């Protein structure tokens, strides 16, 4: 009898739908059907059992090919790389659970590493803005139950977060919003006329790169001052109209996306959006939320904040104190400047997401990929260690884009012998402790890692 598993959380995007129903085969090895997920979510599950999986760690050989090795050997190799590097970088964590992130932090602290996550190339600018200006936000259920004005700014959930609008923002009927879509005004601000803009009551086509100026205009108007005829390509009347709508909302939410945090000035665009949200709370209730990309990219921000007080870009290399300063301790900056001498790519694909110059710099040193899948990073690595897929083969806690923890389940077992991120990092930690103890016992032995870098 195939087994139906309910309340399954989707390990894809930050919407973190936890209402999936997954049917698995008799032997618990194959996923037969996934209900309730969007197309992308659906694919994640089927990919897990239909594609060819790597079952053992693979070490690069002198001829450039990969050779399978045991987990013990891989763990020893990884530990030695960390141990011998002056400034190793452990980066990624877009797609794993918080347990894995906590274990990785233990390793990073022991190894004196830089610990960073994908926010560094994505919503890091949001975090910078939060440091400077706070974050008046709410959980997504609040939006569903109360919001009568929704503003998407530089975000296109129709593509990036397919069920966002139906579960939380535009369409659902909540406690005070029984009429659903009809009870809400939707505003979309974006340089491109996106699919999300199509459902908007008001669409403002902001001039690319002028978001800050437009926010500034909103704030200036909200305080009763004059603004020029046109700002950021938007006519004054339109700006006045939107400000009136915002001030008269009962409960409003600004959802912003990469359009805002990746154009000029980055964090300042978010910062002034937060200022606007603050201002609007003098009139009525407004909240703001980042449309975080991956299902648990909020996780490392949480875990490392409670462990060190910093959500990303942690420099643990001083070993007795943590330091953080994005712009210096951020992965791309470190890589481009040549500050790094070993790289761990964990649960992400830096090979695909980093600028090519950064990849080239990093490739001068050992590169280890820890990921369930074959990806660009795994193919340019010196060592690839496969792990189980969180949310499919490994359970755990993940943090949704609104920082709500969601408990994920596993629906099938990982391929035989494949371990979780958490177990892997715990074992690397043990090995590091052993190396440290060995060294404490005798003089420091300089062991260079075996394995030869692949061709670029």
């Amino acid at each position, binding site marked *: 009898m195939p087994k139906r598993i309910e309340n399954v959380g989707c390990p894809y995007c930050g919407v973190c739908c936890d209402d999936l129903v997954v049917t698995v085969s008799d032997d618990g090895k194959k996923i037969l059907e996934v209900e309730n997920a969007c197309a992308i979510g659906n694919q994640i599950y089927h990919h897990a059992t239909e594609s060819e999986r790597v079952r053992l760690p693979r070490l690069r050989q002198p001829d450039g090919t990969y050779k399978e090795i045991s987990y013990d050997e891989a763990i020893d190799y990884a530990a030695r790389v960390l141990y011998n*590097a*002056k*400034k190793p970088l452990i980066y990624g964590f877009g797609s794993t659970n918080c347990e894995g992130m906590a274990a990785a932090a233990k390793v990073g602290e022991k*190894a*004196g590493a830089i610990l960073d996550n994908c926010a560094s190339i994505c919503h890091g600018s949001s975090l*910078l803005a939060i*440091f*400077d200006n706070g974050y008046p936000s709410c959980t997504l259920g609040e939006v569903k139950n109360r919001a009568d004005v929704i503003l998407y700014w530089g975000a296109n959930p129709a593509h990036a977060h397919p069920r966002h609008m139906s579960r939380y923002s535009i369409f659902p009927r909540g406690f005070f919003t029984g009429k659903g879509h009809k009870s809400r005004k939707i505003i979309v601000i974006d340089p491109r006329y996106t699919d999300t803009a199509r459902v908007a009551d008001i669409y403002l086509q902001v001039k690319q790169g*002028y978001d*800050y*100026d437009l*926010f*500034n*205009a*909103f*704030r*200036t108007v*909200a*305080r009763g*001052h*004059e*603004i*020029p005829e046109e*700002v950021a390509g938007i006519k004054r009347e339109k700006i006045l109209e939107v400000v009136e709508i915002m001030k008269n909302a009962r409960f409003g939410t600004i959802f912003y996306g990469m359009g805002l945090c990746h154009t*000029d*000035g980055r964090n*300042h665009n978010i*910062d*002034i959006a937060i*200022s606007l949200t603050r*201002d609007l709370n003098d009139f009525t209730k407004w909240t703001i939320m980042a449309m975080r990309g991956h299902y648990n990219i909020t996780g490392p921000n949480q875990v490392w904040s409670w462990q060190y007080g910093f959500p990303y870009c942690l420099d643990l*290399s*001083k*070993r007795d104190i943590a330091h*953080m*300063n*994005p*712009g*210096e301790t951020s992965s791309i900056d470190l890589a481009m*400047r*040549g*500050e*790094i*001498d070993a790289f761990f790519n964990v649960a992400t694909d830096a090979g695909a997401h980093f600028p090519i110059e950064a990849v080239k710099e990093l490739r001068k040193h050992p590169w280890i990929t820890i990921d369930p899948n074959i990806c660009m990073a795994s193919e340019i690595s010196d060592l690839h260690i496969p792990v189980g897929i969180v949310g499919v083969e490994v359970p755990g806690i993940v943090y949704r884009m609104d920082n709500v923890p969601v408990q994920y389940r596993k629906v099938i077992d990982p391929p035989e012998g494949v371990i979780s991120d958490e177990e892997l990092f715990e074992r690397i930690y043990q090995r590091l402790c052993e190396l440290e103890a060995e060294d404490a016992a005798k003089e420091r032995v300089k062991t260079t890692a075996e394995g030869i870098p692949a061709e670029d």
Partner: protein
Amino acid sequence: MKTVTLTMTNPPELYLEGQNITPDAFAGKTAAEIAAIDVWEGKLKSPLGKYFTVEGNGGATAAETRIILRGDCSRLKRVGQQMTAGEIVIEGDADMYIGGWMKGGKIHVKGNVDSFCGLAMEGGELIIDGKAGHHLGSSPRGEWRGMQGGLIRVAGSAGNDTATFMNGGTIIIGGDADIHVSTHAEGGTVIIKGNAKGRVGGQMVKGDIYVFGQIENPLPGFKQVGEVEQEVDGVKARFIHYIGDLGERHPVSKGKPVYGNIYTRI
């Protein structure tokens, strides 16, 4: 005044963190003692003498100590961090955080510097003959009490995010400034002899900004209120006076709101 000369003879493979290279740390120490002071290359803590040759002893106090850095210091960070007195001369380029949290004394860099220089400065002088990177005289992450005092003078251009959360002191940029000048500022003066790209004075509560050239993209939150003649860094000139950021809160003093000021040269 006694002079300690550090010459970079064995540059680091990565970058070197030299927060202990200050007159305060060198004062009262002999050359040999100075060579034993800690510096960091990543997690590797080593004596300064591993990378530099050291000549000369420190003075009795920080105020009586001058440090001269020679050789390629372009991968050296944090020189002069938290210094209270004395002098540092860097003969070429230097990296990040030069003069960070500086309280007094003088640093003269004859080349360029990277980002975060003069961060959270409280006093003293930081003179840069070349260009400065981003976050010049800015505030550390999350800190709303940015630069409090002192003078930063950069002959060349500066990157973005100059003087964020500035509270006091003066920053003079000989060339152009990239976007974001005095964002969230609540005091202090920034003088830009060249052009400013945009977002000048965004979310600014108080403080003054002078731009001798053009502001490429002025913010809608600033309003022209008149013309003034003023002497700025020794130059007498006429300026158009703007107040703002009108989108931001402003304190009230003697019944009148206090704004941030931008002056652009006519």
